[in-house]
């Protein structure tokens, strides 16, 4: 008894440490179900703690969000019109690019159909707000304000408009924990965009993201985009993950290289996220409509570029040869972006021809016949080109 009394403090510490060590040993056993990283009891403890903490997190988040919203939406509105104009121009450019890419995508889908490969598009998402974080440098976990009542389940991918954030770890009724890409226990199957090399992306202890299972390859360069490969059955294929930041030999895992990746999403500043709750083999109706609109727009722009335009002296664009043509597509939107400038202008380029009054009848370099062009829209004869002899 004297022994116990004399060393009661130390014995108490040993008992507490032993209990926690046993608890740790139980937890670090390989989970039987990948969707349930914790055992039922640990999950219950986490749920109680989250239930306690979440209301306070929601309150502080609401206060912070209200202050930021009031400032950004009502007070700090400088340059908004200019930004809006720039964004509209950017949107017009993107729509043209999208249509060009859509043609390649259609071809790719046809090839995939021939090979029996089924693409999975993002079918449904749930928007959520980030209300908390782990607050530790050893663990990069976010708390979002949606849970199993909103249809979320563990291992669902979490993204923003910029790219991948991570995946759901623990899902509680009204909240969920998101394991970020840069957490040391996180991983994702990726593919390097240009070289098409497949790899595994992992988080590091220092909160960085790197690929560590590739040997040295001179084709991999900094700046190369990294996309999800879809092979991990968590992240749909083709989502942006980041870009290669640096490549260096990994001293601890020779002969592999440590390819550091700069995440596409600023993982320290995530405010709102989308949780991918379902994928599907076909594009959503809205996406298909967007694609059709963009394709029609692209066709209209191509027509405006290739066909001779109706010159309207009253429009300022007519003077420099950028007059817009009437779009042939019936369902094309009313606002048509100006056609892109011609990369290699030639004598057929709109605006490069002189008026008919300046032409000499019966000249050797007469205009080519107006094949296929309606008489009412027949362009004026092109500018006389220098004779071959004259150029010699």
């Amino acid at each position, binding site marked *: 008894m004297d022994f116990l009394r004399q060393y009661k403090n130390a014995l108490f510490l040993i008992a507490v440490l032993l209990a926690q060590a046993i608890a740790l040993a139980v937890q670090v056993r390989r989970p039987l179900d990948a969707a349930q990283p914790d055992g039922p009891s640990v999950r219950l403890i986490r749920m109680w703690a989250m239930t306690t903490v979440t209301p306070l997190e929601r309150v502080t988040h609401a206060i912070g969000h209200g202050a930021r919203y009031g400032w950004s939406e009502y007070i700090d509105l400088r340059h908004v019109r200019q930004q809006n104009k720039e964004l509209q121009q950017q949107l017009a450019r993107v729509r043209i690019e999208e249509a060009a890419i859509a043609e390649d995508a259609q071809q790719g889908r046809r090839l995939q159909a021939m090979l029996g490969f089924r693409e999975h598009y993002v079918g449904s998402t749930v928007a959520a707000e980030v209300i*908390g974080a782990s607050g530790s440098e050893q663990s990069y976990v976010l708390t979002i304000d949606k849970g199993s009542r909103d249809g979320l389940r563990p291992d669902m991918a979490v993204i923003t408009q910029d790219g991948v954030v991570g995946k759901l770890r623990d899902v509680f009724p009204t909240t969920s924990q998101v394991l970020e890409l840069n957490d040391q226990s996180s991983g994702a199957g990726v593919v390097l965009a240009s070289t098409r090399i497949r790899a595994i992306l992992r988080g590091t202890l220092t909160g960085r993201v790197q690929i560590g299972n590739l040997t040295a390859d001179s084709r991999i360069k900094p700046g190369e985009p990294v996309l999800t490969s879809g092979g991990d059955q968590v992240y749909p294929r083709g989502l942006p993950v980041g870009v290669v930041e640096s490549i260096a030999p990994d001293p601890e895992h020779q002969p592999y290289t440590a390819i550091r990746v700069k995440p596409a999403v600023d993982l320290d500043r995530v405010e709102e996220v989308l949780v991918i709750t379902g994928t599907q083999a076909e594009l959503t109706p809205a996406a298909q409509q967007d694609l059709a609109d963009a394709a029609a727009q692209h066709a209209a722009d191509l027509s405006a570029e290739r066909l001779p335009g109706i010159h309207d002296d009253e429009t300022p664009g007519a003077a420099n040869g950028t007059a817009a043509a009437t779009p042939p597509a019936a369902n094309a939107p009313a606002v048509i972006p100006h056609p892109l400038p011609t990369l290699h202008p030639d004598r057929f380029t709109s605006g490069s021809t002189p008026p008919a009054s300046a032409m000499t009848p019966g000249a050797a370099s007469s205009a080519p016949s107006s094949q296929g062009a309606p008489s009412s829209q027949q362009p004026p004869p092109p500018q006389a080109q220098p004779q071959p002899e004259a150029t010699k």
Partner: protein
Amino acid sequence: MVTRSYMSRREVEQQSFSLAVAIFVPLGAVLLQVLLPREFHGLAILDLPFIVTLFFAISRRSPIAGTVTGAYIGLLQDVLTGQPIGVNGMAKSMIGYAGASLGSRIDVENTKTRALLAFGFSLLQSVLLYLIERRLLGIRAFHLMWLHELLRAAANTAVALPVFLLLDRAKHQE
């Protein structure tokens, strides 16, 4: 003849806190630790639960109370992260025990002593976490970055001193 023993000195100087302070100050520290780095990412280097654990340990001067406080705060911290529950619990239990044991032997009201304690125990906690992660959990990738840990200890010390002064007001002298 008056007997001056370790127990008598400890009992004379032992300080206690109200139940509300004992429960809500650690809870508040853990909450702030979760919320602040989200707004100011650089503050993730701080460990407010560690500071509170150390304060209660050296103030109460009871190793058992220090162990319990450390375990309570550490486990709460673990629950809110994705880490296995017990990593911070074990580390802070030992910090609480060691802090209370040392607090009963030296003058912990002195500012310089407090600064030294905060700095030293912050480094000790880093070493304990390293041992737990690397040896117990077998995470081979876990490394101790000394410069970063020294910075963390300095930051914890800088914050600990005003926090200790603030929490001194909550003491009940017995």
